[in-house]
């Protein structure tokens, strides 16, 4: 059953150095507040997992929290490169970053196998591409019934999954609506799960395209209003596209990045402090 706790407490208790951590969110509901808490607590040697690593992964990588990245698309959506990610891969700054690189279909199936507690998943893909040459977690397999050659990918079972959702009820059930991406599979595939939410409510209203994660699948729920910013929470706030564009020159420069992180992430108490801090800086708007 999920306990409602402070985010600081949840990250301190459930994320350990060396863990594999999946902070999932497909553009929508990205757990930004939780990522910042991991950075503030100086977690290190993490294997980061995410289909679409974006700004918060750029920040985690640039701050030296990551040893390895398991992913399928690493960019600033609609803007361009993740410069910290690129700097780590191209130049080994601030440290080298091991890659385990897949396609979206491969990653999605790895989570499904993980949530099903199966050792691997099969799909039709990768054949003829160069991905199997550089990624050891892709192997061909013959269907025992038809003899068809398919591709196998191993299950993902992160030590910790972290997602952001709109609501939890008082028993710790979690409601997510809109684009729900891979969050359900990430939570069910993981050993431990943390969910940050916009608010706790007495009961959920019926909504289109809503899913509910039962409390038994979650370890900790932390209330963090605006916790997905600059991503969005359907029903609460819009994506701040201007922030994604403003991130490009900050992420591009090592010095500017380090100063920005120092000022707006490390020196603030919590995520509310972070949003106050960047709102004070006109350059982000």
């Amino acid at each position, binding site marked *: 059953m999920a306990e409602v706790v402070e985010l600081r407490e949840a990250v301190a208790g459930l994320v350990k150095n060396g863990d594999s951590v999946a902070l999932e969110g497909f553009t929508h509901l990205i757990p930004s507040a939780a990522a910042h808490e991991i950075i503030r607590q100086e977690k290190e040697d993490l294997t980061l997992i995410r*289909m679409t690593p974006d700004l918060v992964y750029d920040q985690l990588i640039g701050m030296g929290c990551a040893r390895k990245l398991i*992913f399928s698309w690493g960019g600033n959506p609609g803007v361009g*490169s993740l410069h910290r990610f690129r700097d780590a891969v191209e130049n080994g700054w601030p440290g080298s970053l091991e890659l385990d690189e897949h396609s979206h279909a491969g990653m999605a199936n790895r989570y*499904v196998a993980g949530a099903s507690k199966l050792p691997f998943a099969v799909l039709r*893909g990768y054949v*003829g591409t160069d991905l199997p040459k550089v990624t050891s977690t892709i192997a061909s397999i013959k269907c025992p019934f038809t003899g068809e050659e398919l591709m196998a990918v191993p299950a993902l079972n992160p030590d910790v999954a972290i997602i952001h959702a709109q609501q939890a009820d008082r028993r710790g059930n979690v409601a997510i609506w809109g684009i729900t991406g891979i969050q359900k599979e990430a939570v069910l595939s993981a050993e431990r799960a943390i969910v940050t939410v916009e608010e706790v409510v007495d009961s959920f209203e019926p909504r289109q395209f809503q899913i509910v994660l039962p409390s038994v699948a979650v370890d900790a729920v932390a209330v963090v209003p605006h916790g997905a910013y600059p991503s969005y929470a359907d029903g609460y706030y819009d994506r701040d596209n201007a922030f994604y564009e403003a991130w490009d020159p900050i992420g591009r420069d090592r010095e500017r990045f380090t100063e920005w992180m120092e000022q707006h992430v490390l020196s603030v108490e919590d995520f509310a402090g972070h949003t106050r801090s960047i709102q004070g800086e006109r350059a982000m708007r």
Partner: protein
Amino acid sequence: MTDAAAREYTTDEMMTVAAARELEDGTVCFVGIGLPSEATNLARATHAPNCVLIYESGTIGAKPDVLPLSIGDGVLAENADSVVAVPEIFNYWLQAGRVDVGFLGAAQMDRYGNINTTVIGPYESPKVRLPGAGGAPEIAASAKKVATILRQKPRSFVEKLAFVTSVGHRYGGDSREELGYGGAGPTIVITDLGILRPDPETKELTMTALHPGATLEEAKEATGWDLKVAEELETTDPPTERELEILRDLKARTEASRKKT
């Protein structure tokens, strides 16, 4: 035609309009972000109101009123026919053969329509680390047809890819068929200079049309291999007034909505 000749438009607008025209009404289309999204939404606003746009974030029948900046913008879910989990989109829809056409962008392409979106330079020590595969390999594999839209330049139309992220016609001829994929592979490539289609036998991309104003010399110079040209080279119809008006309106509304946030 004097009206059309006098009408001014950019090569990018011509490219988007030419790509939009390729989307038939009623088709199920898996849409990449950026240029493909622009073209398919222009198609939906002009001749193809009943096309079903699928984005890899899980939206089926998306009807965005402005262009999304990312693949999972809220505007894609708002009026969608359905929103499903990501594994469903890839397994039940794409892999199961429910997608008629995949509309892709690319960083680099070779003469057989293979695509690189992974690295420039060696994989272990890349000169440029690109974002990676995303949904493209399986779209290229399993969509019944693939249309690609990208600007024709020496650095994007290359003799040899540094990395094959998504398979087109592989080494040409029947070499794609040996891979056992359900989809037919690339059927058209739309650029800012014209249109390329695979040769029916060799599967090598062949310039079959030039946009008005573009020259063959220009196209050859922009291509990193010895470009094949169709015997009867066509000229694309220039954008109509309506196409331009709707495209510009769509972009202006998109711009305004981004400033508002």
